[in-house]
């Protein structure tokens, strides 16, 4: 064993003595046959003992070698663990997608199904069927981008309400998220394209109390369990009674701060009970069924949630912005 300093050299020594084919011991074992039968057992025992001793010695030596090799490794290998780790590239979903998903997931848990519809929509679905006939002032309020006399870029996702109700009978509990368009100049708070989530619940016995309860349950999940909502009367042609819904300010819990302009409330969506004329248009009996609907801006919620000061940032795709969400 003198001069053996590596595992490779040790293997050579092991092969020399213990190899089953050519090892010294194997060769000696083979010679046993030529001994007189009386000597064989003793010689055999001797050889086996010798094999045992050699094997043991080799194993001991191997352990020694390994531990000294480890000792060398441990001595020489040293890293500055404060150096940066490998920068696997970062990817992020868009903040609007993030909020959109969060909202969808809450509603799906609440039994709402996600429905979609075309972005190029007919005048009928975008206006007429929603109790906004030609010449109605509400058509001005949401300045519309037209494709042709009869086709518009939908100004809300409310047409999906109509399409859904045309397709099935109550109970209905849906949300309709998606891109919507207005003829608005781009500025910090306006964009000709933004995202909306419309909701619709229709069944027997649905009241304004259910509207309040559903939205409260939603916002308590989206913001925090102590979020309160406030409804106050407002006007949208396709609901009656109509409501504007405020949530208690998520930054000051309603005490009054810069974000809520001291009021403790943040205006967040429009809602109301489905107008009986809308029900009549889709062939529902307004005496049998009642329902509520609401529409809220996904972008607006994102702006509020993350306190983004300028809507344009969402569509500039600057990765310094995107990487923050």
């Amino acid at each position, binding site marked *: 064993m003198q001069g053996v300093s590596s595992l490779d050299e040790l293997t050579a020594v092991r092969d020399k003595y213990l190899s089953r084919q050519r090892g010294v011991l194997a060769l000696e074992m083979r010679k046993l046959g030529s001994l007189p039968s009386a000597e064989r057992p003793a010689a055999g025992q001797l050889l086996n003992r010798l094999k045992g001793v050699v094997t043991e010695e080799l194993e001991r030596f191997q352990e020694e070698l390994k531990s000294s090799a480890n000792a060398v490794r441990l001595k020489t290998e040293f890293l500055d663990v404060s150096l940066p780790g*490998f*920068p*696997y*590239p*970062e*990817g*992020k*979903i*868009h903040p*609007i997608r993030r909020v959109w998903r969060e909202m969808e997931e809450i509603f*799906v848990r609440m*039994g709402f*199904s*996600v429905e*979609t519809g075309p*972005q190029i929509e007919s005048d009928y679905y975008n206006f007429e069927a929603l109790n906004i006939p030609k*010449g109605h002032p509400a058509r001005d*309020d949401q300045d519309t*981008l*037209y*494709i*042709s*006399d009869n*086709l518009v*870029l939908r100004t809300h996702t409310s047409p999906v309400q109509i399409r859904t109700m045309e397709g099935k009978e109550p*109970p*209905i*509990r849906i949300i309709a998220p998606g*891109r919507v*368009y207005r003829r608005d*100049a781009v500025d910090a708070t306006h964009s*000709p*394209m933004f995202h909306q989530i419309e909701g619709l619940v229709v069944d027997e*016995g649905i*009241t*304004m*109390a*259910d509207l*309040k*309860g*559903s939205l*409260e*349950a939603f916002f308590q999940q989206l913001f925090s369990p102590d979020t309160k909502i*406030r*409804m*106050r*009367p407002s006007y949208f042609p396709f609901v*009656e*009674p109509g*409501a504007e819904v405020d949530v208690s300010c998520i930054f000051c819990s309603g005490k009054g701060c810069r974000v809520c302009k001291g009021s403790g409330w943040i205006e967040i969506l429009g809602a109301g*009970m489905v*107008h009986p*004329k809308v029900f009549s248009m889709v062939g529902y009996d307004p005496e049998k069924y*009642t329902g509520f609907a609401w529409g809220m801006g996904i972008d607006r919620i994102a702006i509020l949630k993350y306190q983004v000061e300028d809507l344009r940032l969402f*569509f500039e*795709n*600057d*990765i*310094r912005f*995107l990487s923050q969400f």
Partner: protein
Amino acid sequence: MKISYSWLQDYVDIDMLGVGVEEVARALTMVGLAVEGIEEVGPDTVFDLDVTTNRPDCLSHLGVARELAAQFRLRLNKPEMTALPTVEAQERLPIEIAIEEPGLCPRYAGRVLTDVRIEESPDWLKARLEAVGQRPINNIVDVTNFVLFGLGHPLHAFDYQKLNGRKIVVRRARLGERITTLDEVKRELTPEMLMICDAQVPVAVAGVMGGADSEIGEGSTTILLESAFFQPATVRSTARSLGLSTEASYRFERRADPMMPVQALNYACRLICEMTGARCVSEVVDENPAPYAPRPFTLRLSRIKQVMGVDVSAGNVADILSGLGFAPEVQGEEAVEVCIPSFRGDVDVEDDLVEEVARHVGYDKIPTRYPAPTTIGHFTAEEPHDRRIISTLVGLGFYEAMNLSFTIPAKEERFLTQVSAMIPISNPLTEMDTHLRTMLAPGLVESLRQNLNFGNRNVRLFELGPVFFPGESENFTDHREVRHLALAATGEAFGSHWNHSAGEFDFFHLKGVVERLLAGMGATAEFEQLSDSAYLHPGVAASIRLGGETIGVIGELHPRVAEAYKFTTRVLIAEFSLESLYAAPLAEPEYQRLVRFPAVERDLSFLLDREMPFSTITSAVQALRVQGLKDFRLIDLYYGQNLPQGKISLTVRFTFEDPTGTLTQNEVSERYSQVVEALKLQFAIEPR
């Protein structure tokens, strides 16, 4: 709409409540007149009210006062609106009113006053107008404005002496007629526009603005006061075509009160006579060919409960509706009969009355209840696909971008050999959003450019969104909206580190992303050399094919396009349609039993013609269906000086395995040779 607290006091004694301005503001907000600001103006307090389009009756102090009176159960004090007597017959001045378009102007009332002294208004009147942001002009104009903001009814004063023929004719404009309005603008008129004319020419645009020629001024002593009711639609369209919106048109468009013309006229006459000593020298002329008939209506208490979710007593309902002017009569236990007042054109169905009750009971009195679960929620069929794509790309280091759906043809032209048809927007707001995009790549390339401008150097973006195609029909009835996915990257490849360098993001990085993406959706695409893309480098581009159909492209941005965007680094880009990928639900994973016996690898290095696409080798190997060949992959590729002209050197690795046992050397060699021989035969490869 600015509402003065003191002015409100004229009509309702809110101070009596002793609740303070803040509480009044809160009450207004909670009945639907959102107070968006409270401002001190001298001794007065002014509310900035957001009045919804359905409530033109609240575009006045009287209307707002009515809401407060109903809310707080106070008396509404209307001003004296009976007619003053007319002077003796011999002093009277004639005025004739003819409505030629009763459909557009159902009512027109007027009265002539004389001995009018045009002068500055008294202080109380000026203070009222200034509080609501109106500049006092002279006593007559100020009275008409006072009535407008007080009662909500627009009036107009003509200089009687300037009216030809002492006559008012309400008719449509004649072709070629013109009028110079009070704002000194000469306006061309069209026959759709309703005009107030004298015996000869238009003297006012009905419901919008008076004419300069008949304007009252310092020398005026005799005036005709006009108080009319015009159809909302006609005022609206005229105001729009003239690009003119006034306090008057704002109210007529939303529907003024058809019962108010004479009352407002009487009130104005009283004020003018009181202030200036003027005298009424004509009767109240009231052309009212089809008088407004108040509509009776029934409100069921059960409906209130059905919609609101709370019981409201008949007495309470009656009190609220009475305060709002609906003259309710309780009919037993079940219903209340009402008469819809003329100023509430918005009340049209029973639920409108439910809202009236709900508003004044207070939405905050409605309990909170979560509707019983009757449905099970589900996402869209596309959601799993979207999620898989997005999570893969985010995991691979791409940021999700969102661009607007708009573009201009010039932007897409750079990216197309042949400009495809696009859907135009017929009334675009700016020159930059005239059409709907048919591809995502231009927007994404622009976003990449922007990022470089912002100082971001390594940028990987994707966008998953709709593009729009016009179809064949001229009016776009067969247009299509298609979900596309685009990827764009430039700069360092995945991660640059002090200890590693991955080099520049190149074609194969992006191809790998697309392959991973498609594999994740259970699809395998073919990439076919593409040399005629308008925006991709002809040598570094491929079409992406799925089941024989081309779904998109991948490649390096064409140097010509890259130059147009001033890129100095390579830009890799891919865009494809997701339609066919989304056509079926994502497949469930299919479990394959693991082979428990060791796999054996054999490498093969060989020379191949450079022109030969590697995919042909792959297909050939796959076509052999060699038993137990589990994997076949390229592990090295070399082209360079030591090789014969036109050749490349490839090393591929074959992995063999057998589920039933360990393969022997002979079995492996036999299968390996089978492949090698076949490749020799088909491609004349030269093993090295």
